């Protein structure tokens, strides 16, 4: 299986071209999404300057061939809501099928309906780790439903406190009434950054750099040793804090001397071929540039269970971009991801992520914020790595048979907020509960406090550490002195607060299975 072993360099270039003529792109390749519908005029806008019908149909040839008419084929992938892109007469549309993504021109989502669902119970505010330590932060209820209800046509002012939301998304989980809080926050933050944030401000540039970690990481990993040294070089860090607002207390993660993708290429791609059991691995940026051992563990574990692993071209999942309101950046990356992952799904694969924020993004934020062709399919076919094995394999039986790792392991496990939102907070503890020689201790349900890029901002550093305090204490109290978590930035925080070495559950799984 060498089809997907191209390094992302080439994928990069082709999509850069796409970006150049984003709105009027020509003939898309089969399986490639059309220009995102959220960049198309809303369904009610007169048909001008949109993708010609023939192109749109061409783009869907594969589905049409798969049976069913055009509309049916598309409805299957986009939640049943028709768009204007097919040239459909808008009066034919199902009036019940309002999708906020469709309603408003210019890509703004109309989420006032979410304000209807809120009955002010304040569960979200009490679950918010930032509100707990930051008296100035009005909390998710204000940022979401209240602010949306107060907004009027012509109002473009979003309160700047939206930039204090760390996007941990705990409020989504806390709400008993299904208010789409994080969707409202993401949209509000996007509007704030686009319309109200000074584009030459240090804060904007710093946030943009943090959000586009993939870009910096790609550069750094060309000279990994130099970069690892230079980024953490004392005087350089002092300057970064002064000039960029990046706290000098934090250590930049080290860059691997061989990225995951380089390893994969050198390895010759997949060792197992199996058309019946295929997974497409979304490694994300961190496993590629910083911790390729996590990616390697994923490949070995999945091959152990007889899966054919595909590694499609991919970019950033968008998590840090959402958290910084850089929705345009996130959307650009999403186009590449959706295109390639949907293609893999077409070849029978499910999508597996080892980072819980990446899987969260593909599953929840993508369909909530963008309307790319196939994005709903992708959301439905995406799983976290251990979750998927627990569903489809007898993981515990297999672990039992393998008899545990060579040496005793004691780990202090922290469940990331984004794992919690996917219902995965207990899976690592449960999976390893009966494995001989392995003790996994849950260090509690607090947030680690870093929330991706939040803790990387100088003005947020103290609060980030205050939120993390409870986790640090519980880690110290736990038996083990190695930490474990699925989330790369939680791992940074855990390491930063305790000095522990941090592992990913996949690595423990690899060890325990002898994969």
């Amino acid at each position: 299986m060498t089809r997907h072993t191209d390094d992302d360099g080439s994928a990069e270039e082709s999509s850069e071209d796409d970006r150049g003529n984003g709105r009027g792109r020509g003939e898309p390749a089969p399986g490639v999404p059309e220009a995102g519908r959220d960049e198309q005029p809303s369904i009610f806008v007169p048909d001008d300057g949109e993708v010609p019908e023939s192109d749109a149909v061409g783009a869907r040839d594969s589905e049409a061939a798969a049976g069913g008419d055009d509309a049916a084929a598309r409805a299957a992938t986009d939640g049943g809501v028709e768009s204007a892109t097919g040239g459909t007469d808008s009066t034919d549309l199902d009036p019940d099928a309002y999708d906020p993504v469709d309603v408003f021109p210019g890509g703004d989502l109309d989420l006032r309906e979410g304000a209807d669902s809120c009955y002010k119970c304040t569960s979200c505010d009490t679950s918010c780790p930032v509100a707990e330590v930051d008296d100035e932060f009005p909390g998710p209820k204000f940022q979401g439903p209240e602010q949306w209800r107060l907004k009027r046509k012509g109002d473009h002012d979003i309160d700047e406190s939206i930039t204090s939301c760390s996007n941990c998304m705990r409020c989504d989980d806390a709400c008993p009434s299904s208010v789409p809080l994080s969707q409202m926050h993401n949209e509000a933050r996007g509007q704030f950054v686009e319309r109200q944030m000074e584009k030459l401000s240090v804060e904007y540039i710093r946030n943009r750099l943090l959000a586009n970690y993939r870009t910096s990481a790609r550069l750094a990993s060309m000279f990994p040793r130099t970069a690892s040294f230079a980024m953490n070089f004392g005087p350089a860090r002092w300057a970064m804090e002064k000039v960029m607002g990046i706290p000098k207390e934090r250590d930049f993660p080290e860059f691997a001397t061989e990225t995951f993708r380089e390893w994969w290429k050198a390895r010759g791609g997949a060792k197992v071929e199996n058309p019946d059991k295929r997974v497409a691995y979304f490694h994300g940026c961190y496993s590629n540039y910083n911790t390729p051992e996590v990616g390697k563990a994923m490949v070995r574990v999945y091959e152990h269970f007889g899966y054919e692993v595909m590694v499609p071209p991919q970019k950033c999942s968008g998590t840090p971009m959402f958290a910084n309101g850089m929705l345009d950046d996130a959307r650009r990356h999403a186009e590449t991801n959706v295109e390639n992952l949907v293609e893999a799904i077409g070849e029978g694969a499910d999508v597996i992520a080892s980072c819980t924020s990446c899987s969260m993004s593909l599953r929840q934020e993508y369909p909530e914020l963008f309307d790319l062709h196939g994005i709903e399919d992708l959301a439905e076919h995406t799983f976290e790595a251990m979750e998927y094995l627990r569903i489809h394999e007898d993981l515990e039986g297999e672990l039992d048979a393998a008899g545990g790792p060579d040496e005793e392991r004691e780990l202090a496990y922290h469940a990331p907020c984004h794992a919690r939102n996917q219902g995965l907070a207990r899976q690592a503890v449960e999976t390893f509960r009966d494995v001989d020689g392995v003790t996994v201790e849950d260090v509690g349900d607090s947030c680690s406090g870093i929330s991706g890029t939040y803790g990387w901002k100088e003005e947020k550093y103290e609060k980030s550490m205050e939120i993390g305090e409870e986790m640090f204490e519980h880690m110290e109290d736990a038996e083990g002195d190695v930490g474990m978590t699925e989330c790369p930035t939680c791992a940074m925080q855990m390491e930063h607060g305790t000095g522990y070495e941090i592992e990913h559950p996949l690595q423990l799984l690899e060890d325990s299975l002898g994969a």
Partner: protein
Amino acid sequence: MDRQVDVVVVGGGSTGCGVVRDLARRGLDTVLVEKGNLTHGTTGRMHGLLHSGGRYAVSDQKSAEECIEENMVLRDIAAHCVEETGGLFVKRPEDSEEYFQEKLEGCRACDIPAEVIDGEEARRREPYLARDVEKAIALPDGAVDPFRLCVSNAADAREHGARIETHAPVTDVLVEDGEVVGVEIEHETGPGKRVHREPGTTEEIRARHVVNATGAWAGNIGEMAGVDVEVRPSKGVMTVMNTRQVDTVINRCRPKGDADIIVPHETACILGTTDEEVDDPEDYPEEDWEVDLMIETLSELVPALEDARTLRSFWGVRPLYEPPGTGTEDPTDITRDYFLLDHGDRDDLPGMTTIVGGKLTTYRMMAESISDHVCETLGHEATCDTADAPLPGSENPARMEELMDEFGLRSPVARRSGQRLGSRADDVLDEYDPNPIVCNCESVTRAEVQDAVDEAGSDLNAVRLRTRASMGNCQGGFCTHRIASELAQEYPEPVVRDAEDELYQERWKGQRHALWGEQLSQAMLNHMLHATTMNRDGDPANLDESVDFDAFDAGAGSPDASGSGSDEAGSTGTAAADGGRATGDASADGGRATGDATADGGR
């Protein structure tokens, strides 16, 4: 009170407030008396439409012309009460094309700026409009806040020497020697600001002239004076949606009919209305079918209404009037014009004039015409300046834009505060630092509440009307107690409690007509919060007799606790440690030791 004033105006609605302002500005010594709050009657129970005149452009062109003229005046003098939303008369396929053309021609004949737009354009402006809306006439309808408008008029009148008495119902019209010479009023809680629990007093106010501006209630005042005023009150329902599905006034373009208008108002949308003649403006049935009709029929224009959250519904009574002998059958056909009845000419009872009919949009014009009449009667020479003099709060509209940066309020909060206060924002917001938000749904800050308390005393409904506090989606569930707490510095506890109860009840009244879906959840949550968390359904402080606290708990190990043997005493001992619950019984009956005075006594 022996002193005679020039004029007593009865009725604190838009007309009465307009008249008292006009007369005060002309230099007359004037008193306004109102039986409830300002806007208590019909003014506070309307959908807040600032007419462009389009609605009357076919049937009643005189009214239409007055509307467009006054519409433009109010945009100037009452900028902080008006939102320039614009309006659309939309045509669905089944609506008559002929009428659409008549409407358009009518607008042009009345100088109402009107533009025809196609369905696509209408949906571009209002994306939630139904997809089969064919076309629309766009014209300058707007939204007006009747509360703010009346309060500003009254405030300006007071600045010009008038006296404003609310919660002061007229109990008699004084007639001496065949002439009206004043009114007798009852101050529910004494003169001046309303403060709960203050004793009531009565007062005679003698005046050279009495203006009866009580709208649908005009017949009652007429009766006290011994004259007939044949008002034909007609009720209409208005349903308040939680959010604004539209930002433009949406009218159905058809001759007449119920449920044909949606007005975006502040954070909400108001759906209206019905038109049903009633016997008594105080007592008429509020019927469910009316609410259902609003939602069903208006969903034809805006389908999203069907599933959207409804906050409450309220009813108002139009003060329709037609000269005796006209005999119109259907209330929708009765003219919307206003009538000035000089009882000297009409009934040979000088000293009183009644004004009936009309509508809020033309309130100032009505006030001008009655003030002209009063001045003429009294031989007072002065000119009217109310069309040019801005109302307090609208002196400097540009100022509103600067406020956001200044007061450290969260942007949408500042925007809404600024819009409510207009140019008074500086003075009001400056008072408090920090200035926390008291009502979250409507983003009303402490400074605004305190400002309203200064004006309205312990009357929290009056505070509500001035600030919108408690008018959002929780309907007071999360803020009545906070608003009431703002009274605590100034008023004793029983006053604060009464004020709180009154506001909470008022909020409940309208919600009774919205108890399904989300608002039902909200009402239930509010109930649980107030009944259980705050114990307001059985608060010892509200009991008449004092509480026998000894019956709850005599303390750990007390030999005669609850006086029923050593076993019981043992469980009481436990109760003392865990907040009053007898743990032994907790599992069996859901946490309450029923039948045991230690847990439940005192109720």
